[in-house]
């Protein structure tokens, strides 16, 4: 442990400063006051879901963004951690063990870590396609086990438990959603901070190096395989914590928590948010959870829209939403954000309206085809319209066409404004 002694013995070169801590303190404050802004239970449930997805997405990005490993089976580690935690809750209910509930996610983490150590020992030998294929295979394997190893996975109905049998903490028994919210928020802050710090350790830095150029890393004395292995294990640990929180929140885990759809979802979330930045997956998880919960309440076709947004992100903004934000750092520093306001209003706004118009047309078509015969009335953007009325159809198509036409017309102006906003006075960008 020489490195530990070295670093401790010397005064900190890059010590803690307010600039470093500010985003974290703000995030903590934000998490603390959110339940006072959105007070009803369903909002708190959505926020819990969001926090869990954030931890899972950050853990996933340790692989994808930091380590350059594309996994199609990362739900396994979250799911296994979750299943373990439900069993522990049941043991607590039976009086076999006893502990405070807030400690439970830690055991989910260790269970995820254990499995990651096992699977990673062979899956991280190679990166790229080989790694991706093994992750897919293992994901399918474990998901298939859920109907075979019934004693652990509970078969098709899964396993369920009751979270309220832990030792009360300061009198809280976690009967209410709000108590679970603060428990989840605590683990969110802790996990996010630890994952951030991991990326600043020697092995975390080398994960970036191996991602960029595995061969060069080898010629610097690091085995690319072991660097990947450490990232993989750490990622499995935090995914397990997310699983534990899921178990506490929903008190049930099923095959759905392990399968390919969930693994694909987290890839989508992480990519949507942006893999190139630590905070990318946080944005992705927030946006995705909002889409998946709020949009789901309003339309059956929500997955279609999420898919369309994902495809658009991959095609036009490979840096994800975080990349999109980061693109604006340069204009901001140059003090030229003002240049962008008008073209954004004249181009992006019509584009969004056109997109909404298209979504409206899709909804009407879906309603016209799928609703019971004679049921013509449908709600569309807070209006009551008839899915069979030619007037409504003409209106929605006209809005769509006009929106896209305006956006297309404004595009060259937007591009020019963008170039202008990225040009330093009197120089190249």
């Amino acid at each position: 442990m020489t490195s530990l002694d070295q670093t401790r013995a010397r005064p900190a070169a890059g010590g803690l400063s307010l600039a470093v801590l500010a985003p974290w303190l703000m995030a903590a404050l934000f998490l603390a006051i959110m339940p006072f802004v959105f007070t009803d239970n369903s909002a708190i449930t959505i926020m819990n879901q969001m926090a869990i997805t954030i931890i899972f997405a950050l853990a996933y990005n340790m692989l994808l963004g930091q380590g350059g490993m594309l996994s199609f089976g990362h739900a396994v580690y979250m799911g296994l951690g979750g299943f373990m935690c439900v069993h522990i809750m049941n043991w607590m209910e039976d009086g076999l063990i006893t502990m405070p509930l807030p400690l439970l996610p830690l055991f989910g983490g260790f269970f995820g870590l254990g499995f990651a150590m096992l699977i990673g020992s062979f899956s991280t030998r190679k990166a790229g396609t080989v790694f991706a294929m093994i992750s897919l295979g293992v994901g399918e394997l474990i998901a298939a086990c859920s109907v075979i190893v019934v004693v652990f996975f509970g078969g098709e109905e899964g396993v369920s438990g009751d979270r309220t049998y832990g030792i009360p903490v300061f009198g809280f028994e976690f009967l209410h959603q709000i108590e679970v919210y603060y428990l989840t928020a605590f683990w969110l802050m802790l996990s996010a901070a630890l994952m951030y710090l991991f990326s600043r350790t020697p092995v975390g830095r080398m994960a970036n190096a191996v991602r960029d150029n595995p061969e060069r890393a080898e010629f610097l004395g690091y085995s690319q395989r072991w660097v990947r292995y450490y990232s993989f294990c750490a990622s499995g640990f935090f995914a397990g914590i997310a699983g534990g929180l899921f178990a506490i929140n929903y008190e049930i885990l099923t095959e759905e928590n392990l399968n390919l759809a969930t693994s694909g979802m987290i890839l989508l979330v992480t990519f949507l948010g942006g893999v190139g930045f630590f905070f990318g997956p946080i944005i992705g998880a927030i946006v995705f959870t909002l889409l998946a919960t709020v949009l789901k309440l309003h339309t059956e076709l929500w997955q279609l829209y999420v898919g369309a947004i994902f495809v658009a992100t991959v095609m036009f903004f490979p840096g994800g939403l975080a990349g999109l934000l980061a693109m604006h750092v340069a204009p901001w520093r140059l003090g030229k954000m003002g240049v962008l306001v008008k073209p954004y209003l004249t181009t992006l706004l019509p584009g969004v309206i056109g997109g909404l118009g298209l979504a409206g047309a899709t909804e009407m078509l879906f309603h016209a085809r799928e609703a019971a015969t004679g049921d013509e009335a449908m709600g569309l953007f807070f209006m009551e319209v008839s899915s069979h009325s030619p007037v409504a159809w003409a209106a929605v198509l006209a809005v769509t066409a006009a929106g896209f036409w305006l956006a297309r017309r404004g595009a060259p102006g937007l591009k020019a404004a963008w170039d202008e906003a990225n040009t330093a006075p009197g120089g190249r960008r």
Partner: protein
Amino acid sequence: MSAALELEGLRKSFGKAEIIRGVDLSIGRAERHAIIGPNGAGKSTLFNLITGRFPKTSGAIRLHGKDLTGLAPFEINRLGLSRSFQITNIFPKMSVFENVRCALLWAQGHRYSFWSLVSRSRELNEGAEEILEQINLTARRDLPAGVLSYAEQRALEIGITIAGGADVIMLDEPTAGMSHSETDYIVDLIREVTKGKTLVMVEHDMGVVFGLADRISVLVYGEIIATGTPEAVRANPKVQEAYLGAALEAEH
């Protein structure tokens, strides 16, 4: 004094084609040794064999008397041998500073540590700054390495190569594709940073070779046809015939 690097009857075949056909070479400590030869002579292959990038077919490679058979590149690096590549091989998305700092991690004993923070090790950060100073890239510190100019990227690669403190440095065509002024800059840099170290380099530019090397080996079709001081090699009729005459003519 034992040799820093020793090759004995080294052979390498790709399928039926034998690329390295029995190379014997002994490079002393703190010697600057250049390997020259026509295109396709197997110079880069020789490099790749020594550094464990390719497995050898037969023969022996010894670093400070230790046999390197079967070792992976990272294990060879840990024994004190570091190399650069013919095609620039850096971490393009990481900052220039990060590139150098990563190169210091293993050498400073950080291993696979996930319990210490890189920003809190003064030795590490000051070491990286020192290297940046040496390779003249301090001003480029925070730029992604991928956006540097070609000569700067080559300088960075040399920085990464020497950062770990390896005592045997292998450079594969460090001045390839450079202008005259850039070449001069890199040669000065190489001379500066390899002081007291063993340098093995492949180079096409005869000006660089004769200016820098203590000894030269001429590799032709996988065999070393001559080894010696620059003067001896230049005067060797076999070398004149096989390679150098044409190469020196092309220079003028």
